């Protein structure tokens, strides 16, 4: 318990830990509450390191393995700290057919990182996704919550420019 709190306090502020506890309390006892807790926790803390998972497991009276299993199963959850901005390149079929691959390659070249990685300056986390449902605008790049449609490789730099 003490060790777990120590781990948590190294990365998160007491306020954040209190928020986490509040989220746990809100869903405690509800059937199927684990995934909503993880979703909300990730929104608050940005990522779910083992220390957070341990606290959730204890709070919901679940084995750690169960929490860990769920976190690693769903692509929405991440265990590493993220960049200030998330760049997601859609590689759904429609975007793929319309040249999404070239966009992904351009990004990788520009930042020298691979899918799922974060730039050393923590400016961007780069991910690929399977279809955002904006197929009419393919290829699509989503930066944070902004969807950019009909992207061409040469435009990638311009699009990312404002996100500092």
């Amino acid at each position, binding site marked *: 318990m003490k060790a777990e709190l120590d781990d948590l306090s190294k990365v998160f502020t007491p306020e954040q830990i209190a928020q986490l506890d509040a989220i746990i309390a809100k869903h405690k006892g509800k059937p199927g509450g684990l995934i909503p807790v993880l979703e909300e926790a990730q929104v608050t803390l940005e990522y779910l390191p083992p220390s957070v998972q341990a606290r959730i497991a204890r709070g919901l009276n679940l084995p750690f393995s169960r929490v860990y299993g769920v976190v690693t199963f769903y692509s*929405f959850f991440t265990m590493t700290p993220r960049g200030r901005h998330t760049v997601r390149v859609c590689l759904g079929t429609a975007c793929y057919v319309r040249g999404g691959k070239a966009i992904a390659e351009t990004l990788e070249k520009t930042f020298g990182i691979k899918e799922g990685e974060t730039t050393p300056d923590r400016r961007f986390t780069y991910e690929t996704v399977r279809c955002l449902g904006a197929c009419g605008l393919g290829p699509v790049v989503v930066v944070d919550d902004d969807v950019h449609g009909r992207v061409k490789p040469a435009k990638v730099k311009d699009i990312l420019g404002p996100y500092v």
Partner: protein
Amino acid sequence: MKVFRSHLLLCGGTGCHASGSLEVKKALLAELDKRGLADEIKVVETGCNGFCAMGPIMVVYPDGVMYTLIQAADIPELVEEHLVKGRVLERLLYKEPATGETIPTMQEIPFFALQELRVLRNRGIIDPEKIEEYIARDGYAGMAKALTEMSSEDIVKEILDSGLRGRGGAGFPTGLKWKFASQSPGDIKYVLCNADEGDPGAFMDRSVLEADPHAVLEGMAIAAKAIGAHHGYIYCRAEYPLAIHRLNIAITQAKEAGLLGKDILGTGFDFDLEIYQGAGAFVCGEETALMTSIEGKRGMPRPRPPFPAVAGLWQRPSVLNNVETLANIGQIILRGAAWHASVGSEKSKGTKVFALTGDVNNVGLVEVPMGTPLGKIVFDIGGGIPKGKKFKAAQLGGPSGGMIPTQHLNAPVDYEKVAELGAIMGSGGLIVMNEDSCAVDMARFFMDFCQDESCGKCTPCREGTKRMLEILTNITQGQGKEGDIPLLEEMAGIIKDSALCGLGQTAPNPVLSTLRYFRHEYEDHIKNHHCAAAVCSALFKSPCQHTCPIEMDIPAYIALVRADRFEDAYRVLLKTNPFPSVCGRVCDHKCQSKCRRGKMDEPVAIKFLKRFITDNAPRPKITAVPVDRKQKIAVVGAGPAGLTAARDLALRGYKVNVFEELPEAGGMLRWAIPAYRLPRNILAREIDDVRALGVDIQCNTRVGKDLPWRKVAAEHDVIYLAPGAHASQKMDIPGEDLGGVWGGVEFLRDFNANEEAWLSGKKTLGAKVAVVGGGNSAIDAARVAARLGAEVTILYRRERKDMPAAEEEILAAVHEGIKIEYLVAPLKIQGKDGKVSAIACQRMMLGEFDRSGRKRPIPVEGSEFTLSVDAIVAAIGQVPDTSFVPEDSGVSVNRWACLDLVPDSKSQTTNPKFHAGGDAVTGPDTVIAAIAAGHQAARDIDASIRQSAGEPAWEAPEEEKIDIPLVIDEETLESPQTAMPEMAPSERRQGFAEVELGFTREAAIAEACRCLRCDIEI
């Protein structure tokens, strides 16, 4: 940031460029500069705004005033009036036509007119965040009816009778699902909505949830009443924040209004529901996995039985329906089962919503009756394929589905037919693919998806998809092996049979489907390391080079043009192509269709640059190659195939004799293609080079007539037959043998042989000429006839976009005043005194799709009409004249009069002494294909001679090294292809001078700079 008081948006689309927007821009900039306004007013060139007929167009902001048909001369006045004095210049102002009748109604736009809106009936009309607007369009009336007038059994029966089947993909009857759940004992039951739309390329559910969320809530409440549930979940993917947002609003509003919750509408029925946000796992679209996920566990499927209707969420009886299914329910209850079943096909009732995406002009949501032909969805509603590309296949059912290719465009899209064709209906993602998609790569793409999304619970799916992906990846990277295809098929069968859930069982579908329709592409990748779509980049350096039948090193010569090293560029051309000046003029440039630059704006003008090199650099000198081999080779036919083979064999040290029936060498290049496209001296120069190597060309020598077949055979070790296809196909209509009726190539040949007689009027077609056909020969014949002073009409039985002739040729013909009648077919030729006087024709309309993916023309009864003409040129196709091949020669000729090759050889005939190639084997094809055939034959002939003599294979002498400069621009700005300067149409008809004038040095270098150098790996 600089602030401008005004922005001038000048259209820079191709249409406006053509009507002079560049001059306008220049004048504008100069004028602003002159008046010192350059700092206050900014000129912006925009993309095409689709109003090309009124171009050049300029819009002045912030006023929003639009000027049309601007000329450079108007600029001073425009600037003075509008920008200095602030007065609108009325003279150039765009004026609305008085009535507005020019605007089409929604019913005149096929995209909207051909749809049948039921699920999407509220789209674009209601505000999804206002429950009143939904209610105003009969919303919740179905639910009110179900809760007050109907028993649980009534509801189930209504849905059963309606024939509604699950829209999530499998097509299980919804009524039956409800029946089972309603019959399951238990107080606690659940209604679940599957909004985990995970198929890449599908967005029907998202759109319904965003545009009409209450329709789903209403459907769920009715389902709840039907099965006796009081609680429901909507499982929605987190990637759809707007859908979740609107659903939340809808649920809140419905609860406040008493349309959800306790005692709904005062009926005593309770139903409450909440949203469950998915966390990104495709497998959760599978019903048992989805339930496991709501339970807060890893979303893995569980074996069935027990089925969810018996033991679903938390082991309670549950019904899971997809968003679209639920959105159908309210209207079915309100309007009755018969109304729903009134559209659709026999076993698939109602409508289906498709997310139409990919390479199609109109991307969007399409709701059509079940059983609508695929071609109608893609071409009539979808508006066809952009940029004139060809349709290849439609992908249905996402990673669990399959491809439906061109030959099935007439297939009615319903559950049964789609399954029969090897795809699945799926949730409704319909992705159109054009010729630039590779079947193997798509199969790999979907397998990668399934492998990635496999939950790992069962071995066949976890390991099987991984192994299949490995094989597919190998094939796309040129490491495919013999036996890979059967192995894929075997594994597909095993996974299908043994995987636990739908995801695994359907994962092999894309592979099986592509193997069914595009097996040749797999074979091409494995055996030839060739990807016809130029997608699998591990197989090639650059897509243009890979696509060129003779693999010319295009990036190299373009880089050399850019570096101003034209002579080196010429040497690069000649390495692979003995006819670069010919190809620079008349090649069909397949390379450009795959140019990566084309994905950005327009392809590089590879053909024009090739011509520029040959026009502007000194032609490298050819010296004879000594004959050092004892075998002698004969070539029959001095066209591009024969001459290429002769050249290659001469380079390898053979003595080659070429026999040509006509008075001059060149084949179709000399005898069919008119001089205004390919000047004679240009062609002669390239043929002279073949002679200079030591090849002997004997003209006026028809083998089998002027020179006995047996003699040729006796005096040579190997004979290459490349006689081309120089006879026109007959139209097969009455009157075809009247005087004045020509075959296309026969007319062109006669003209080219007797130019003087034709030009002096000794020979004539007459004043009015009809040309029948839509290929390049038809256009050539028409343009020649026009130059002889005739009034020419081309009759073509299909539409413009179906014409096989090159687009630029068709345009040129139109510019030269040639009339083209589309959808017209000849019926009969009428004559007087043994000479043609008129042609009777019939109009055609378009019917179903044929195997080529074009709509088949069918006659319109009673539309016959007669055109009086003095001559008719029938250019509907060519066949080889292979009558010179004796029957006892052992060389087999097939029923199309083409020469047969033995299986597994690309040039050997049924008699090993004879090879063959070019149009006489393939039927009419392109120059570059003939050159490729010549290269192939030379390689094969040489290899077979050396092999039988036990000699090692030929090694090409070391080539001089030409170093290729590497300059890549940091930034690439969009710019259109450089246009080819042309002679004015009015001058063209005066003679046979070359129409295309060639690039200037500056234009060529600028165009070369457009190359993205995608051949370079950094």
